[in-house]
């Protein structure tokens, strides 16, 4: 079993293809069709195009702050290939490709970063939670959902995400501890992209790696090359099989790199070197998967054309978000409660009176 072979206490890491797309562990290569591989690559490409465009929309002043996820696509698309319709996704905020795989649309994501809560009202993804901003607080939610699943004797699994920095929050440890005690079907993924804004992992913790934190909670943990699509695919297959068959939670550390800025407000040149960035570029997940496909001769598409097609799709989604129903006063008040208190109704009315006064005044 991979969870035994890749013991995080010994700082081992699961890796199936190298930076040049060559298979280094053929014995571990997952069962996966060529078609699936090609489609996965396309999904990663789509995620990347969408991300680049999001950054550029923000630059154009058409969107507020946005956190890019360039470089982390293998994790998302591998999970997207394993996660089932009835499985739950409890995201942090950098899992766009996986959210798309679950039915969230770029329009919704743009709407959210455009400052409209309707962007969290995923119409076709009832089992995806909104993006979670207060770091770490999402993990107990995942565990609670896991409890519901177990309570109802279902075979669903919860996928949940956190960053390397997030592992320092108390909620991270509390959630993993509850998951261990309750033996709930939750797959925790730490996207270790090396930084929490400007703070490197070495300032975040003194543990040998992040996967090893699983030991404190008595759950299996494994460190994986997060830029290796096949390694991530394998680990998600094994982890979801584990969770789905009642064997409890799993902690995955996916080693990756945040190629972009923390958000569009951040300037990484203040805290990391060009050399470091260049080195990580060598293990870019798209590059590696493409190389693999080329070696195998299964890549037949024209990437530039694909890019153009995706750009148009993303553009349309963005326009749809821009042209979304204008934000109304109802949007401020009407979702606060299932049963709105009278006080709140009155506050709304009073504000409407002010608006009327204001209208008359002009």
């Amino acid at each position: 079993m991979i969870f035994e072979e890749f013991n995080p206490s010994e700082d081992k890491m699961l890796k199936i293809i190298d930076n040049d797309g060559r298979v280094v562990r053929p014995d571990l290569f997952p069962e996966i069709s060529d078609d699936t591989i090609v489609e996965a690559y396309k999904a990663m490409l789509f995620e990347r195009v969408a991300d680049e465009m999001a950054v550029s929309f923000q630059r154009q002043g058409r969107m507020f702050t946005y956190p890019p996820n360039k470089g982390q696509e293998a994790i998302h698309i591998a999970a997207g290939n394993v996660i089932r319709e009835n499985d739950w996704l409890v995201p942090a905020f950098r899992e766009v490709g996986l959210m798309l795989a679950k039915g969230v649309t770029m329009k919704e994501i743009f709407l959210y970063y455009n400052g409209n809560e309707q962007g969290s009202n995923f119409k076709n993804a009832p089992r995806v939670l909104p993006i979670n901003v207060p770091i770490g607080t999402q993990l107990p939610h995942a565990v609670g959902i896991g409890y519901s699943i177990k309570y109802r004797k279902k075979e669903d699994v919860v996928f949940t995400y956190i960053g390397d920095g997030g592992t320092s929050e108390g909620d991270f440890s509390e959630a993993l501890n509850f998951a261990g005690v309750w033996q709930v079907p939750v797959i925790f993924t730490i996207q270790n992209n090396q930084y929490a804004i400007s703070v490197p992992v070495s300032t975040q913790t003194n543990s040998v790696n992040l996967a090893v934190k699983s030991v404190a909670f008595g759950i299996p943990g494994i460190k994986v090359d997060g830029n290796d699509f096949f390694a991530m695919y394998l680990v998600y297959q094994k982890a979801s099989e584990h969770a789905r068959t009642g064997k409890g939670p799993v902690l995955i550390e996916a080693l990756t790199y945040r190629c972009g800025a923390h958000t569009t407000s951040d300037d990484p040149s203040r805290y990391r070197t060009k050399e470091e960035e260049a080195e990580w570029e060598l293990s870019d997940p798209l590059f590696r998967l493409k190389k693999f496909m080329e070696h195998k001769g299964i890549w037949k598409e024209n990437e530039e054309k694909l890019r153009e097609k995706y750009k148009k799709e993303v553009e349309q989604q963005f326009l749809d978000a821009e042209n979304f129903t204008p934000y109304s006063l109802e949007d401020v008040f009407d979702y606060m409660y299932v049963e709105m208190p009278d006080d709140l109704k009155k506050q709304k009315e009073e504000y409407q009176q002010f608006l009327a006064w204001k209208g008359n005044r002009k």
Partner: protein
Amino acid sequence: MTMVQAINNALDIKLAEDGNVVVYGEDVGVVGGVFRVTEGLQKKYGAERVFDSPLAESAIVGTGVGMALSGLRPVVEMQFDGFSYPAFNQVISNVSRMHNRSRGRFRIPMVIRFPYGGGINAIEHHSESPEALYSHIPGLKVIAPSTPHDAKGLLISAIESDDPVIFMEPKRIYRAIKQEVSTDKFTIPIGKAKVLTEGTDVTVVAFGAMIRECQRAMVMAKEAGISVELIDLRTIYPIDRETIRVSLQKTGRLVVVAEAQRSFSVGSELIAIANEEAFLHLEAPPRRVMGFDTIIPLAQGEKYFMITPERIFYEIEKTVKF
């Protein structure tokens, strides 16, 4: 029934009636809670529905959010008022916001119960009245009953509410008051205050364990010829403005009685409401008979901090004589 029994009975009824209800927290399972509020429920409904959790309030509440949005109706216990704070971030960032954040896609039908208040000679952090903190948070409803009957009816309403509820139980009167309470199911509406005694000279607003103290003060007031209208708030957020307005239009005078520190409190809010709703009727400055802006002292100091009937009477008299 005592209040402990009434709450137990409410949980029992909802556990029996609704398979989605689960009850958990520190020591609530095997021993039935440090105050025995959940006694016997694990035996009756099994350890999957009534259980002990690890010692971590943030995760207790945070897992409750996950359960609630996936269809369960968790009723979680914070062992004491002062130990609800480790979960504060989950409460303010998620419990109260998930419905709004998801535009109604997810509901959080969750109850967070805890014993609150002083007067039992407890150790530090076991005597707090944090209602103002929770009532300031939009998205929550906050309840504090004053009798076994109300505790039962309000708790059933809270469990049935699709909005999250903070349910504060006045531990000081957990066993101090006995009352006939029907073992049948009944509910009491959230957000409605109750006029316990009608009167004409002054309106006294209180809740929880302070109601009994007010009633004792009213004996003194009666002797002094003062007619007090006593309102039990029952729900602290949303406050029942209507009941307060009607009363103040009659009496023109307001005394708020609560255990918590007085600044930025339920007392402040009630005075603001009195001004907004009945300014022209006010004949004397509303008064706050509340805790000092100090930490509630350990047992030996409670004699100063806790509100006594005498002190309530003193303030009532001042208000009426103004």
